[in-house]
């Protein structure tokens, strides 16, 4: 197992809007390791993008990291990301050089009035002011070539609108990989793309992981994507990691009712019409009007009166597999 590069410990993030406080992240912990892919999976509003943006310190002004820590364990020792100034010199140096992010929609993430090459050069030169324009462009061409863009010498001078969706995402990844970061955070990188293009992007990400040892944090809502790419999985619900474990732990021996229900509610390709779908009843609660006790309790088939008392403690099931549920033994053993 690779060494830890980013360690998130008991992270709390609150948003303050309209005199109300939304506890978006309620104490989440995980490690991102070299050459491994950690998938964060959950439905919309569960806090997965906030997690990614908290690591990059890209959260909106109205938010605050209320507790816990985010540490970057680089070659120069530990850097506490959560204590750095949001847009200070140190944070700006880390961003891009050591940790890079790609977003869901490459059209809005790229600037339409500058060529792709200009935007990659900007990144290269910001982190290495001595780099001349010519040399930077040569590096950009090489990066585009590495990401599998045909005719990179020509493409480097083109603008985002001249690229197709999949190519734009490759351009984004090229930009993210420009300074050879140790960690790549991918926030739903293929949600806006077609499946055949998605498969191309995944292959690219796999090769970054195996060939360069890049640590990847992949955020997704698609269990299929998790099954394809993940080494470790964190399942999030209403701001908590309700289950964490290796891919085998979570997909074959889920210990949290939410994970189990999620896996049973999606149709799986190749199982035909006979498969039984069990939708999760109700809908995700309003974050300002949270249920008492365990957040999943109103939708849970296993819930008992004790579940309404408090959020359950995190328990270790086996190895690295941990779960936030009082009834995890029952969930794992009842064979449903």
């Amino acid at each position, binding site marked *: 197992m690779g060494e830890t590069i980013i360690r998130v410990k008991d992270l709390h993030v609150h948003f303050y809007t309209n005199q109300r406080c939304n506890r978006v992240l309620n104490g989440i912990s995980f490690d991102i390791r070299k050459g491994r892919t950690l998938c964060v999976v959950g*439905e*919309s509003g569960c806090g997965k993008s906030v997690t990614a943006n908290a690591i990059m310190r890209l959260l909106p002004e109205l938010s605050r990291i209320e507790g816990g820590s985010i540490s970057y364990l680089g070659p120069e020792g530990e850097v506490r990301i959560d204590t750095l100034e949001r847009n200070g010199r140190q944070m700006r140096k880390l961003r891009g050089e050591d940790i890079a992010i790609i977003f869901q929609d490459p059209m809005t993430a790229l600037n339409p009035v500058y060529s792709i090459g200009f935007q990659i050069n900007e990144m290269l030169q910001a982190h290495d002011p001595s780099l001349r324009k010519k040399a930077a462009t040569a590096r950009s061409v090489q990066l585009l070539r590495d990401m599998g863009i045909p005719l990179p010498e020509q493409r480097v001078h083109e603008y985002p609108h001249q690229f*197709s*969706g*999949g*190519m734009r995402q490759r351009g984004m990844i090229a930009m993210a990989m420009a300074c050879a970061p140790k960690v790549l955070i991918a926030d739903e990188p293929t949600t806006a793309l*077609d*499946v*055949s*293009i*998605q*498969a*191309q992007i*995944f*292959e690219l990400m796999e090769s970054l992981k195996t060939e360069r040892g890049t640590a990847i944090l992949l955020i997704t*809502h*698609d*269990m*299929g*994507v*998790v*099954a*394809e*790419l993940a080494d470790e999985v964190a399942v999030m619900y209403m701001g908590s990691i309700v289950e964490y474990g290796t*891919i*085998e732990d979570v*997909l*074959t021996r889920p210990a949290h009712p939410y994970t189990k*229900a*999620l*896996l049973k*509610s*999606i*149709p*799986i*390709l*190749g*199982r*035909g*019409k006979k*498969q039984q*779908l*069990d*939708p*999760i*009843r109700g*809908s*995700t609660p309003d974050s300002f009007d949270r249920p008492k006790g365990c957040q999943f309790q109103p939708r849970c088939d296993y819930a008992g009166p004790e579940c309404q008392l408090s959020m359950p403690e995190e328990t270790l099931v086996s190895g690295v597999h941990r779960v936030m549920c009082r009834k995890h033994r029952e969930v794992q053993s009842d064979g449903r």
Partner: protein
Amino acid sequence: MGAEKEVLLRMRGVKTYFPLRSGVFNRSSGNVKAVDGVDLDVYRGEIIGLVGESGCGKTTLGKSLLQLVKPTAGTMEYTFKEGTQDLMKLSRKELDLARKTLQIVFQDPYSSLNPAFTIFGSLEEPLKRFGVRKRADRERIIGDLLVSVNLQREHMTRYPNEFSGGQRQRIGIARALSVNPELIVCDEAVSALDVSIQAQVLQLLLKLKREMNLTYIFITHNLSVVEYISDRIAVMYLGRIVELTETDRLFAGALHPYTKALLAAIPVADLSRRKKRSPLQGDVPSPVNPPGGCHFHPRCPECQGVCRTEVPKLITRTIDGVEHAVSCHLVE
């Protein structure tokens, strides 16, 4: 189904082109061939899935069917109770009446409901149009509809912003059902929903189909969803149907190289099936200037000389008692 299959809708050579205009004089400079010659029969009481990647023309085909965009050429014969008529030749008035039997559920539950209308306001429009004169009657009908899509009668006085995405989509379905249609086009009806909600809506659609004897044309890019819900599946690529057969057959023995590649590209939430990927190279070409011959040939791993020059026909064969239509030169 067997022998008693009744053709509800027969499409022949349907083409929908969007003209491109350029220059100072707005001269026509070509066409976007969104739908480029589609032959399709829809049987009464079936769910037919229409799948393909973005830009393959599946939504345009759905909209052409309801005449929301005017098809350029072809025929669409629909078997009404009063007899068979070509949807494309209907007058405005006739078309209005035809829409009583043909309805559509849109992808985005946020933009398909008017935010200034209450749910009652949105849902009563079609009823008013089709002659339910008394408000009390409309209220009763809408109340029943809301109950049938697992909402509550009291919800009709609320505004769309008070509902979640899944609830709005169910309201959209209720609206489509309000005029007792026979055929509903579901255009990416579950794509915008969270996975836990998706299953609820899928089961609702199946329940309604059983109860009201509906026919669905289910348009989606999600093959797992379409496998779960459809009886037959048509795979589209750049405006043409490349493969059409029964669902089980498509997943067990797809013949067209595009279908095979599509099936292989889909991530499956099943660890035992984690596989080596061999993704398709390149992008979907532009429908303005599609490649000659077989549209798929530049990306096809099995491309041969004939594929570059000749357009393959969609040929229906009966293999092991199952009708299987595929348009590929290499399928014997």
